[in-house]
């Protein structure tokens, strides 16, 4: 089982990382780089039931339990979306269902991706977070 740090610490790390970039272009370029390192979903799992609704680009999200933590993999056909989901996976993957369910997500705002948080925004960041939390809720129920 992969050793991981608490969600709050990972969020702090991302906030620090993104604060290095003053200009939005550098920030997006970093996001795109993160997208390239996204833990990819197995091709055979890229089925329609793994698609997250509410995204203008396609986002497939898969989860499984590894010991007592949840492991997420994903993919998207848009690179900025891949970056966003990579950020979320860095924070939420290899965490216990309980900590995912209870996690605060205001760090998105602090790393300067606030505009993606609006529920009307078609990229579905809100839907991605919701889907990750729903998986966590389901695993939590299984564990009880």
């Amino acid at each position, binding site marked *: 089982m992969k050793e991981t740090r608490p969600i709050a610490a990972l969020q702090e790390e991302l906030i620090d990382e993104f604060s290095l970039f003053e200009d939005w*272009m550098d920030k*997006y370029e970093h996001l795109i780089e993160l997208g390239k390192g996204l833990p990819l979903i197995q091709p055979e799992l890229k089925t329609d039931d793994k698609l997250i609704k509410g995204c203008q*680009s396609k986002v497939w999200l898969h989860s499984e339990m590894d010991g007592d933590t949840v492991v997420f993999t994903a993919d998207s*056909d*848009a*690179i*900025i979306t891949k970056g966003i989901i990579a950020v979320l996976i860095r924070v939420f993957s290899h965490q216990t269902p309980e900590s995912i369910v209870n996690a605060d997500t205001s760090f998105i705002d602090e790393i300067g991706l606030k505009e993606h948080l609006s529920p009307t925004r*078609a990229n579905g960041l809100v839907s991605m977070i919701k889907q990750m939390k729903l998986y966590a809720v389901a695993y939590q129920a299984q564990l009880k």
Partner: protein
Amino acid sequence: MALNVQEIRNDFPILHREVNGHPLVYLDNAATSQKPQQVIDTLVHYYSHYNANIHRGVHTLSQEATDAYEIARKKIQAHFNIRHTHEVIFTSGTTHGINLVANGFSSFLKEGDEIIVSALEHHSNIVPWQMLCERTGATLKVIPLNENGTLIFSEYEQLLSSATKLVFVNHISNALGTINPIAKIIEKAHEVGAAVLIDGAQSCSHVKPDLQALDCDFYVTSAHKMCGPTGVGMLYGKLEWLNKLPPYQGGGEMIKEVTFEKTTYADLPHKFEAGTPNIAGGIGFGAALEYLNNIGFEAIAQYESELLAYATEELLKIEGLKIYGTGPDKTSVISFNIEGIHPYDIGTIVDKLGIAVRTGHHCAQPIMDFYQIPGTVRASFAFYNTMEEVDRLVSAVKKAKMMLS
């Protein structure tokens, strides 16, 4: 006469704002147009001077509001060259108009009847007909596309038969900008006795249709695409059709007499205008038509075709950029992709540079399926856009390409 774009831009307060630290470049005109001060003032004046319910009050305000609303109807009639004022039905917009007709036709159709739509349709012009077919047992037939985004006319002729009861085609495609040969489409449909509804949502800001000359049975459009307010539009129907169609919604305004045994419906156009209408919107619609006619549709069309030609030429210089919808007749809409890059990514980056374009399937998924793409970036130009704004778009797309590839 050539139009003075700088002077025109002064009429549109929103064009002077900044977005993400850059002066706004608004290229999402196919979704909705911006509003000139003249239209905004008309709305403010209505609400601050003579707001009242119409058609029933005896008091002065109600009379004034009724007069203004009915003058707007006459402006619409004149603009579209409609024979009778009562053939102009105020709606909440194009979608409402389509649904009103689709609902009305459900009592005329039976199993074996056919409805023809084009593969270029907006979802709002597909879904109501699918619902109508489900209700009546009629079949939906689709006119297929050429690779350049134009309709295959010979296929349309093949689809027509005595079973065809209705043909529904948009005047101009919102996703690609293709101008459809509606005069020929209408003529052919009438030869087999089918009625034709034209969706003019996308066309009315670019051209001025003469509905008597076109001879269509129905024409629908929305004010907000042509510098008018949102939430108001018009349905034109030939008198004989409007008399035949049953009312769509029950309520106030649309009745003549109500007893518990029977209600008789009001005369046209009120039969289709149940409830208190969008009074300010209707009056604003009239003001928008006046504004556009003052500029002149010939000047608008001429200038927009220059914008389109320049933007097409400049965008095509970007390596890997492909334009969808390259037919000979099109309006100032450019739907494109860059090889290997998702349209959503391009849209996100150019927005950061203050440029508003639309990305996605533009409510026309069948078109995207035809090209086997998830969507496009769509830049749609209006007469208040400038050549400099085209340059800004092109440089933003180049920057996006650099960042994303």
